[in-house]
């Protein structure tokens, strides 16, 4: 039998198998019981495709020993660093970790285009189509890389929100320049390396300026969007090499990522254009309301503990403040203590609580909070009227009544947890600072509400100590 034909057939078979595992993996990631298995299956598929490419794509020739050594070295270096980073990262820092790895994929796609462009210069027939594919891979990959790195830096708190004056106009001009230059290169068939590097620089700059002004609250949407960008860049690579595994993998992520982005926007009642064009809301509208503030009532730790101990039903609304204070384990201890006292406690999870949709569930899962105790927002809102005490821990915008009753508010229309329907509200908060949306929250002035100021973890520990003494 022809060994070359056998190898190539095995290669294509492995690509088909990999494509199937990607589809199955994504499908299984959508259901809680099978998600982990889905991730593993997709991982095996990826491993298979990589191994088959190395073994069967080209016939082995001894004078390419350096190429093979470098491939193996690259795989080993990448694996060691990747595993270390992934195992070390704290669950609260998950969004920026995803952003970082996403940036790596984008960079990989960009570099591939750089090499293939150079490849065209050394012979090979230049076609406009191939050039378009290479240039688009470069543009999207670079934007995804620099944008992801900025998103990473912002979530790590290393980069502050900064909007350039007339930033929007500069971005549009940049886009025109990028596509103008790319169009010129593609149509003229001019294979100038300096121009290609110019295109690279413009694309990287665009990624930076694109993410720079976007507020922290919108960062998950941006990461998800950049994720689908990298998917597209991978798909362009697949097109370039006629490689089905890259093509299906890239496109699947591109389209699934886009839908996920839209789902996130819906959960926050923001349109995608709004996220991209403007930073959150802008304080102009909110100022009208700020005149008529009521008084804020504080509650002592003892009173709060008594209120909780004698309640029948308690609902906890966790927010990012809880994650920042690393208080997920403490809140679980409080939950166990109250359960022992016969109090029924559930968690009301807003879809975008934390920094990404589902982030809060991951954090509470880390603290061993049982799955059935996590109520989705709709169910939690239905149960609210029968709830004696709501404990809002480090959440702000997701419990803001302005979303329901103040049409001038930037978050008007966003679905929120209607904590004001419960009998008592206790808000645990570090200070009177505003939430991520940067707007006032009239809930704090609500007659049913009392504030317990302090670091979330600290306050919870005091509550636990007080409850044990009761």
């Amino acid at each position, binding site marked *: 039998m022809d060994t070359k034909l056998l190898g190539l057939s095995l290669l294509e078979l492995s690509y088909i198998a990999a494509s199937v595992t990607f589809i199955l993996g994504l499908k299984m990631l959508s259901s809680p019981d099978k*998600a982990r298995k889905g991730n593993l299956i997709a*991982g095996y598929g990826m491993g298979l495709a990589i191994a088959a490419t190395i073994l069967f794509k080209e016939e082995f020739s001894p004078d390419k020993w350096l190429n093979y050594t470098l491939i193996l070295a690259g795989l080993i270096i990448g694996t060691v*660093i990747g595993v270390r980073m992934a195992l070390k990262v704290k669950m609260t820092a*998950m969004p920026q970790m995803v952003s970082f790895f996403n940036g*790596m994929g984008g960079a990989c796609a960009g570099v591939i285009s750089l090499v293939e462009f150079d490849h065209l210069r050394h012979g090979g027939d230049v076609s406009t189509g191939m050039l378009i594919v290479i240039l688009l891979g470069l543009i999207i990959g670079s934007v995804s890389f620099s944008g992801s790195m900025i998103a990473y830096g912002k979530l790590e708190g290393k980069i502050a929100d900064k909007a350039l004056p007339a930033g929007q106009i500069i971005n549009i001009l940049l886009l025109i320049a990028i596509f103008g230059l790319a169009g010129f290169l593609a149509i003229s068939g001019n294979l100038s390396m300096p121009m290609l590097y110019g295109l690279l620089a413009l694309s990287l700059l665009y990624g930076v300026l694109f993410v720079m002004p976007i507020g922290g609250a919108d960062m998950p949407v941006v990461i998800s969007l950049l994720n689908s960008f990298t998917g597209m*860049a991978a798909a362009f690579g697949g097109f370039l090499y006629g490689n089905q595994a890259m093509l299906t993998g890239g496109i699947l992520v591109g389209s*699934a990522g886009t839908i*996920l982005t839209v789902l996130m926007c819906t959960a926050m009642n923001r349109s995608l254009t709004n996220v991209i064009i403007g930073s959150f809301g802008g304080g102009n509208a909110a100022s009208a309301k700020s005149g008529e503030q009521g008084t804020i009532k504080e509650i002592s730790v003892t009173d709060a503990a008594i209120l909780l101990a004698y309640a029948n039903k308690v609902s906890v609304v966790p927010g990012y403040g809880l994650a920042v204070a690393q208080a997920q384990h403490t809140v679980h201890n409080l939950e166990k203590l109250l359960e022992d006292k016969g109090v029924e406690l559930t968690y009301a999870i807003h879809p975008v609580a934390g920094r990404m949709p589902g982030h809060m569930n991951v954090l509470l899962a880390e603290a061993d909070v049982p799955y059935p105790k996590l109520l989705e927002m709709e169910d939690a809102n239905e149960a609210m009227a029968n709830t004696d005490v709501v404990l809002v821990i480090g959440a702000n915008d997701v419990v803001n009544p302005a979303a329901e009753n103040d049409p001038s508010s930037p978050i008007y229309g966003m679905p929120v947890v209607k904590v004001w329907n419960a009998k008592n509200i206790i808000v645990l908060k570090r200070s009177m600072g505003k939430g991520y949306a940067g707007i006032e929250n009239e809930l704090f002035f609500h007659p049913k509400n009392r504030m317990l100021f302090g670091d979330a973890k600290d306050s919870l520990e005091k509550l636990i100590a007080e409850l044990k003494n009761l």
Partner: protein
Amino acid sequence: MEEILSLFYENREFIFLIIVSIFLGIEVISNVPAVLHTPLMSGANAIHGVVIIGSIIIMLQADPGNYYALVLGFLAVILGTLNVVGGFVVTNRMLEMFKKKSK
């Protein structure tokens, strides 16, 4: 114009595959509960790491004397591996926690 048309015609099967994949991607995740949004994003992130295959192809096809391709290809292999390995390990870590509590 003719080049674009011939590009389309030569790649019609890929274009078909692209369009089907777009709909498949939308369909496959449209019922995901909010709880799983973060792991799903992370898992999808690992899957686009498939771009690493492109970097391996570069390395396999590069002329042993072409240091430009070898150096950049080597870099691309590292970047792609980071994306794949980091992505799958992080997703697995997140999902491990969901597993624990279902006991």
